């Protein structure tokens, strides 16, 4: 049995497990409700109505998608340890790294499925409100998918060595920092002390830059999203995910489950 097949089996199992998680449906339900509530919010304004509707829709997709990625992701490993099922899995010819990657792949697929559902809700609401839909909207949602992939990797990473509570705190913290890292970097470059600006640069390289995946404004206002930019964002997401999972696998390999 090749490594890919083992990871595939673990991923399928993780999807089955994740779609039984009630938290996932609660977040998905709130997400769709929020997308629909955009109609109400937009009606409060006499101009920019379509823009507000779609800002709310894409914001809800990103917010609740991130919530699903983080709060379902942080319990991935802990649940297996808690139920002692991890011993059964690891007693088979499955490496710890394959286990971690399988968990990540399964949750990423689950999150992407939720993203697809919320995307459909967004399209339905936009069409119902006769708001313009462009290919840029699909690109923006795809970029959110890349962000969620990175977030699942981060949640899996923390889940590999700490409790769900701490993993949740760290993941949410990194998610927030991920949307501010460019500002921190810019602030650091303005510092008179060179060591501060060097530290800011180093942190900017290490911390996730999640604004890379934020194309809401461009999509809503019909501005072009260059495909080259999407491609580079995809490479960045893949690189960051692989690095995070490799680091997580290294820590997970040394973890004592007793």
């Amino acid at each position: 049995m090749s490594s890919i097949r083992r990871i595939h089996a673990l991923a399928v199992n993780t999807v089955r497990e994740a779609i039984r998680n009630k938290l996932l449906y609660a977040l998905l339900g709130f997400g769709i409700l929020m997308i629909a509530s955009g109609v109400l919010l937009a009606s409060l304004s006499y101009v920019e109505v379509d823009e507000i509707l779609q800002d709310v829709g894409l914001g809800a997709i990103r917010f609740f998608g991130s919530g699903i990625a983080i709060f379902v992701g942080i319990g991935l490993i802990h649940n297996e340890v808690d139920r002692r099922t991890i011993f059964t899995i690891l007693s088979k010819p499955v490496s710890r790294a394959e286990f971690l990657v399988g968990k990540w792949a399964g949750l990423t697929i689950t999150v992407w499925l939720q993203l697809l559902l919320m995307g459909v809700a967004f399209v339905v609401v936009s069409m119902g409100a006769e708001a313009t839909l462009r290919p840029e909207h699909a690109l923006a949602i795809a970029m959110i998918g890349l962000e969620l992939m990175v977030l699942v990797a981060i949640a899996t990473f923390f889940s590999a060595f700490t409790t769900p509570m701490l993993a949740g705190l760290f993941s949410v913290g990194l998610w927030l920092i991920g949307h501010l890292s460019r500002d921190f970097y810019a602030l650091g470059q303005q510092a008179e002390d060179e060591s501060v600006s060097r530290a800011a640069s180093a942190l900017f390289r290490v911390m996730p830059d999640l604004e890379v995946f934020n194309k809401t404004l461009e999509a809503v206002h019909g501005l072009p999203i260059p495909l080259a930019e999407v491609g580079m964002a995809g490479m960045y997401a893949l690189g960051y995910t692989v690095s995070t999972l490799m680091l997580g696998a290294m820590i997970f390999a040394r973890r004592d489950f007793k």
Partner: protein
Amino acid sequence: MSSRALRLLALSIAIGCTGWAHARVPHTTRADRGVDFVPSPRAAQAAAFGFDALVADYHWLQAIQVAGGQEMVDETAAIQLGKLVDVVTTLNPHVDHPYRFAALWLTHSPELVREGNRLLERGIAVHPEDWRNRFYLGFNHFFYLGEYDEAAQALEIAMQRPGSPAYLPRLVARLKSHRRNLDVAETFLREMLAGASDEDAAAHIQSSLDEIEIERKARLLDKARRVYRRRTGREIGDVAELARGEDRVLEKIPSPEPDAIPASLRRGSVWRIDPETKRFVSSYLGSRYEVHYSSWDRARLERWRTADAVDAPDDETVLEDRVEDEEVGPRGG
């Protein structure tokens, strides 16, 4: 009483108490809290955590609430509106209407108008092809600040943008002439006439050129009147006095109608002295060729100018200097 009924009674009392207490809590909204509670654009950007568009929309709805919740937007509310729109346009510069919305309300003082202009300039940078932001900018410059050169500059670009109204070139010409610089206005209009695409547009421009011609004659009469006053020490009784008798200063009174107009279209117009402004006016036009303000707006403009520019040269002095430089034309006496 059964325990079920007791529980229902307790629930009703709890709900009633909650409602009673809530009704007595002041229901101020964020918009009611005033300008001190509007975050700085940078702080709002940092707190948005990537949801910039959503936070911008939230502040935009607050701005609408501030403007719509009052019968008249006073200066305090206008300052709050300006700050809210600053947040909106910093977080989401691609918005369209908020730039003009701010400019519409920020009119209580020169500082507020300039703040409105700053926001409009930000809008122009994002939407360079939209004539409306440039139009509002030009309007603010001439109507509120009396800055005719800046106004003409903004409107001249606006009139070249698609969808701009056909009257803009005439307004630009009028603004250019306001500084008594009729030559600039005329050259501008002649260029426009040369490039006019249809007969209607050409007719409109030609009528503006006619207005300039009559204004030029009116200014000649103004100048002649000053010379007459200096020579005789008295005011003229009627226009004809300028070319009549021993003290005449003109060979003849210029026609109050455009010279090139065919005889069949002549209206028998006359020069008269406006009883209110004491200025020469041709009955052909009914008013002088300049930007018109209501008396209230003119007073406001003067008040702002006095407060705004203590050291700056007075506009009227500049105008007088320019008039002195102009040709008087034929001399009599």
